[in-house]
């Protein structure tokens, strides 16, 4: 069966520090991968998605970047964090074929607090 991992689970970082959040998926190949941010415990904002290694689509220009160095690894980064980067970051995957090729499956999330 497929599983998705995110780490760390929680993170407290000072303003101006770098960021690296990692997401990995097991049990599938060539998934579509997604990064979302959820602020104030409510709406979801799609940040980036990737349909393959090295292929990144940015949805909202901002202080963040994403990379996909391996088929099942998706990394969210920042060189200098802002206070407004605080939030709950969710990674998701979608299969490229089969019965589950339409819905996305979400990881447990990373709670980021920038002070």
């Amino acid at each position: 069966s497929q599983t998705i991992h995110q780490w760390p689970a929680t993170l407290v970082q000072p303003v101006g520090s770098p960021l690296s959040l990692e997401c990995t998926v097991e049990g599938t190949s060539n998934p579509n991968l997604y990064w979302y941010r959820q602020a104030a415990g409510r709406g979801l904002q799609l940040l980036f998605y990737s349909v393959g290694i090295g292929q990144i689509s940015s949805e909202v220009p901002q202080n963040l970047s994403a990379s996909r160095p391996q088929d099942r690894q998706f990394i969210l980064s920042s060189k200098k964090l802002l206070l407004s980067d605080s939030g709950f970051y969710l990674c998701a995957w979608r299969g490229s074929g089969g019965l589950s090729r339409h819905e996305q499956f979400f990881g447990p999330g990373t709670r980021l607090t920038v002070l």
Partner: protein
Amino acid sequence: AQSVAQPEDQVNVAEGNPLTVKCTYSVSGNPYLFWYVQYPNRGLQFLLKYITGDNLVKGSYGFEAEFNKSQTSFHLKKPSALVSDSALYFCAVREGNKLVFGAGTILRVKS
């Protein structure tokens, strides 16, 4: 562009009563529609989807949703609510490689 709307910020229901969480959609072509649930500090969990076929879709935890093309709606329902159903619910529609989510509806079930 595809979109969904969840007109209620919060729905309150007594335990044991039926519940409905509303969702309307605006799409070009045939919609692929989804419901997700989120518990505090957790990721979203997939509940059910409508792709094609029967208008009544059954999902996890006793939830179901009815696709209504004439009313462009996809309301989430459950015959008897549980306190443990209290959570944040999202409706979504597929747009290409992406999902477009509604703003979410908080469901509170009181005993």
